[in-house]
Each structure stands twice: as C-alpha cells, then as structure tokens.
C-alpha cells in the first residue's frame, strides 16, 4: 500500500513536472531502450488463409491472464457484425470483411500491435517506459508509465489501450509479442494456436523473403504489397492480402518514421478512428515534442545502428 501510493505520487509529480516545464523534454525524459537487432523476430500474417476462428484471441487472453469466455464460444461469428479494435481487455481482435461480388470468402484480419521498427510509441513516451527490444518486440515498463497516454496518440495504428476503468493505477495494455513466452523459448500464444498457420513466426528478414516468394508463386492470390515492409519505417509484424490494404481498413501510411510521426497521427485519426476529444488537445503537444525528437532521434540512430 505504501509502495503504491508512493508510486502514484511519483507518477503525479512527474506529470506535473512535465506540465510546469512546458514539456521541455530533456529534463524529464529518460533515454528509452531502442535496439534494432539484425535478427529481430516478426510474424507474417497471411490474411488469405485466415478463417476467422478467433482461436488466437482466446490464446492471447489466456496467456495474459485476461478474463475470457470458454474457447467454444469463439465459434460465434456474430461478433463480426461490427468492427472491433484491440483494447485493454483484448490485445488482439479478428475482424471480418464480407465477400464482395465474386469473392468466395470473407476476409478475416487479425489486428494487434505491429511492433514497429521505428516505434512512435517509444519516441512519444516522455519517461522512456516504452522500449524496442532485441527480439523485435515493443514493450513497456508498467512501473515507469505515468499514464500520460502520449503513446496512444502517437501510435499510427491506435494500438496502446488504457485501462480506464481501473481507478487506482491504470496501466497501458497492448500486444507485447508474448515477451515472457518467447523469453522461455515458446512461441507467441496466437502463433502457437492458429490452426491454419496464418501466423508465421521467424526473423523479419526471412519473413519478408518468404512473403515475396509467396507473391511470386501465387500472383493471382496476393496483391504485390507486403504491409509493414516499409510502412512507418517498417514493422516486425507483416501482412499479406488478396486486395488493397485500404479496403481492409489498414491506414495508408508513408514510409516516413519518427520525424514524420505527427503527420502519421493525423492520418491515422482521420482515416478510420475518432479518439476521445481529449486526445485532440494532446495532439498539439505531441507534435511539438516530435519536432524536438526528430533531431534527438537522428543522434540516437547514429549510436544504435
């Protein structure tokens, strides 16, 4: 109890501190861990294979001790009637896009954190709670998080979610690439359970190679685009699809990374998601930070790469 109130006090004071100094970053901001390992892992999601069984959703919740209905209930396909987004209670969700005209099947798309190579959430986090790890995952340190939610606004994919209903010490939640499982040599829970092997786990390099191979082997099946190969500077999770990603509500993003993040935020918001009005207010501040960050990031990259 003492610990908790102390932590809350620290969080609050940090936030106030940030407010007083007009978000002048250098003083508050801790240097985040940012490693872009050559052999970082990733997952290739082949949306042409996914059947929307949502076993991955169940496995993800189970692996993260989140409350879940029994696995059989996931056969219920009525959930696809509306589009869902990952939130604090479901770190990954599968959506369905009904078949059009001559399509034989609907298209199911699993959504979760993309584990960006140049993660906007890492750049946006003023206390350095977010980090990009050797194995490709983008994770965060709950103890450092002050609950400012900058990561939510910065993320071009609207991934980080906030446990709003937890009044005491709410936390950011998002797919952590099953950091604890992979550390033990296990596969990410969703990758392990998927009956169709929609999700291929491997080094990002080998996945891109494989994705290109698939496109050239089955030119009728795939469009010539690996989503995440270049988007926002590349992501560890990559997608293949049979039709334009925009039709599957993937945000149209450029290849620009951190320096262009502010642009990416606006894109993301207007393209497919209306965040709480409060977040708009933050936008200005974030843009300003990012401008600052553009310079400091440049220096950082020299160190790390």
């Amino acid at each position, binding site marked *: 109890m003492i610990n908790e109130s102390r932590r809350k006090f620290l969080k609050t004071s940090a936030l106030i501190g940030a407010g007083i100094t007009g978000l002048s970053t250098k003083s508050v901001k801790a240097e985040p861990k940012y490693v872009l390992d050559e052999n970082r892992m990733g997952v290739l999601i082949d949306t042409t*294979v996914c*059947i*929307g*069984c949502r076993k991955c959703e169940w496995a993800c919740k189970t692996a993260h001790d989140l409350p879940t209905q029994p696995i059989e209930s996931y*056969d219920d*396909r009525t959930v696809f009637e509306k589009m869902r987004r990952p939130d604090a209670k479901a770190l990954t969700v599968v959506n369905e896009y009904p078949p059009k*005209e*001559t399509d*034989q*099947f609907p298209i199911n798309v699993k959504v979760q954190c993309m584990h960006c190579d140049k993660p906007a959430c890492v750049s946006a986090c003023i206390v350095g709670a977010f980090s990009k790890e050797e194995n490709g995952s983008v994770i965060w340190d709950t103890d450092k998080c002050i609950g400012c939610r900058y990561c939510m606004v910065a993320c071009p994919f609207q991934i980080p979610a906030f446990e709003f209903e937890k009044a005491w010490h709410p936390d950011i939640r998002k797919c952590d690439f099953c950091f604890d499982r992979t550390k033990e040599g296990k*596969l990410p829970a969703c*990758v*392990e359970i*998927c*009956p*169709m*092997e929609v999700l*291929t*786990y*491997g080094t990002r390099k*080998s*996945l891109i190679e*494989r994705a290109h*191979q698939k496109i050239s*082997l089955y030119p009728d099946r795939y469009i010539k685009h690996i989503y995440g190969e270049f988007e926002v500077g590349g992501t560890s999770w990559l997608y293949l699809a049979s039709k334009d990603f925009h039709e599957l509500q993937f945000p149209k993003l450029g290849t620009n990374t951190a320096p262009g993040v502010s642009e990416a935020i606006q894109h993301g918001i207007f393209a497919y998601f209306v965040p709480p009005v409060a977040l708009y207010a933050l936008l200005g501040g974030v843009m300003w930070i990012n401008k600052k960050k553009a310079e400091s990031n440049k220096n950082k990259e020299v160190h790390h790469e």
Partner: protein
Amino acid sequence: MKKLIIIILFLAPILIQSQTKLNSTHANLNLTCSNCHSCTIPTKENPCLKPCPRESLIRIDQKPEEGPRVIVIDKLRDTDIYAPVKFSHLAHAEMADMTGGCRTCHHYNPPGNVIGCSDCHETTRKRADITKPDLKGAYHQQCMNCHRSWSGKTDCNDCHVVKEKADLKPVKVKDEKSKRIHPEVKAPEKISFNTKTDKGKFVTFYHNDHTGLFGLECSQCHSNESCAKCHSQIKKPAEIKKSFAEQHKKCSSCHEVKTGCNKCHSNKESGPFNHKISTGFDLAKFHSKLNCARCHTTPSKFTGLIKDCVTCHGTWSWDNFDHKKTGLVLNETHGELDCESCHKDKSYANPTCTDCHDDLTYPKNLPGKLIKR
C-alpha cells in the same frame, strides 16, 4: 489393428522407396535438374529443392479407387486435444477428380509413389524452414478451403471430436472397392446459355468439344470450384452483376472475347465445332484422322496457323512425301515433273493440269494412275 494395416499399407511404398529407384525414375523424367533444384549439384543431404508448389513440374494422375479408402490422421495425436480424424480419402479423391485430381491436395510429388502430407510438412510449428506450413497448418489449409465454402462454418467440431468423447474404435473398411461414395458427375455434352445481350443472345457451349477435341483438362476451367459449386449452403446474393471481364473470364484464356463476339454468340442455337466453317480449312479431305495437336503444336493455342501445306509438311521431296496419299500415284507418267509444273501456287490443293492436258484428256478422261483413297 486394421487401422494400423491401412496406415502401413499406405506408408510402405514411401518407406521402401530406395535411392536407386528414385534415380531411375529421375532419369525417365523429361526435366532438367534446374526445374526442381536451385543448385548445380544437388546431394541427398542438400537437395536444394525449389520452393513449393512444383505441381506444374511433376504430377500424379491416379484414379480415386487406386488410393487408400480411409486414412486415420493421427500424426498429431500426442499434442492435440482432439482425437484422430477418420478421413475418407476415397470420397475426397472422387470429389477432387472433378477438378484438379490428385494434385488438388498432393500439390507436390517427387518422382515415384504418391506421398502424404507429413512427408514434407513438419509436425513442429517452431522450426527453421518457414517456406511451407507445419503439418497442422497444411492439413487445415487444405481442408478449410473447401469445407468453409461447403458449410460456411469454421467450427472445429464439424470435423473434430475431443479425445474424451471420441469413439476410438478402429475404422471398419468394407471391401467395396467398386462402390463409389460420391456419385460420378457426368459431363454435359452441351450447355445453351441464354445471355442478356440483344445481339447474339445464345451461346451454345459444346462441353465435349472442349474436353475431347480441344483437349482441355477439367482443372483448366474448374480448378477453383469446390463442393459449393453444386451444393452451396451459403445463400447467394440475389443476382450478382458481373463485369464483362468476369463474365468472359473462363473463355478469354483461349478466345478473343473483345472482338470476336459472333464466334460464340448467335441468335439461335449453333452446331458443334466445324473446322471447315470456323477456319475455312476442310479437314475432311486428308486430315480427318489427325489429332489436333499434330498441327496445333502449342497446347491450347489453335489460332494463327497458316493454311499453306508447307507450314506443317515443310518442303516436299520424294523422300518425305508419299504422293500416293493424294490419290495420284507419281509413276513414270508424272514422276519426272517438278512439283511446280503442276502446283503453280503454294496451296497445292488445286493442281494445274491444263498445261499438258487438253479438254479431252482432262478432266473428262483423267490422266495418270488414280487409286482409291
């Protein structure tokens, strides 16, 4: 016990298959090494095989009844929560027979015997080679492609029973080799399409011409059709308005659909393919017994062949052409003439006789020795 025997029977040929046998079958293949291997000297340790699918290179064609009747899929029994699936191989082979045949599932088969899924697909998901799915993924990718469209459902218990509830009695296989499970699908002789266009409302499609005469394989038109083509349980939207390209998709791989409308469309039902009417080249005279491919050497390409005899026969000489076949024996009467003396134009079909023969000898009294063709 019987179950075991079936599995052993199915696997035995694969296990026994020796290296020497493989080599001898390799030699018989009409392939170069680079068709399948990416390095110059493939070894047993490093065969450097090119990525799947290689079905276009090596294929197997067997009758459904030549394969096993039932296969018990139990390769994943140790890790799975579900009991092994009793898979009716015969029923599925019969259904596949209407589309791509064995290749529908056995999409790659090295020379020799038919191999099963687990010979290529590993049982572990965490593995180095990600160029092909693991066994579980491979099974489901094959099954769900059709089962999804057949039932519109993806529920696990459509095919699976959890171990505790499963009937683990071995499968009974009655020796009914001759009995089909899926009734045979008879190909229609012709289909008359009543199209929506004003001009040329009718398209009479002679199915047997396409499969017989033009040598199309079922899979060339029907490859992406699953059970749902006939047994759709998913309600189709009322009437889908297809684009021109969509409507003509199947025909356009061979037919010029943008300009040659009246080749297929007419105001009444039309007759089957007639080489003379369609191309102006009458096969009846000398070519009636020939297989199309003797002249149309590029598969599925029938246009663009020049009608002149030399196109196929090359330059005629005494050695390579038996003039007797035309009905006129080149004996001493005509034997010493140059071809051009009678055949003034390159068509060769209408010889000029009047240079030597007058009205009396030709055509009234035919010159030379004629034999019955």
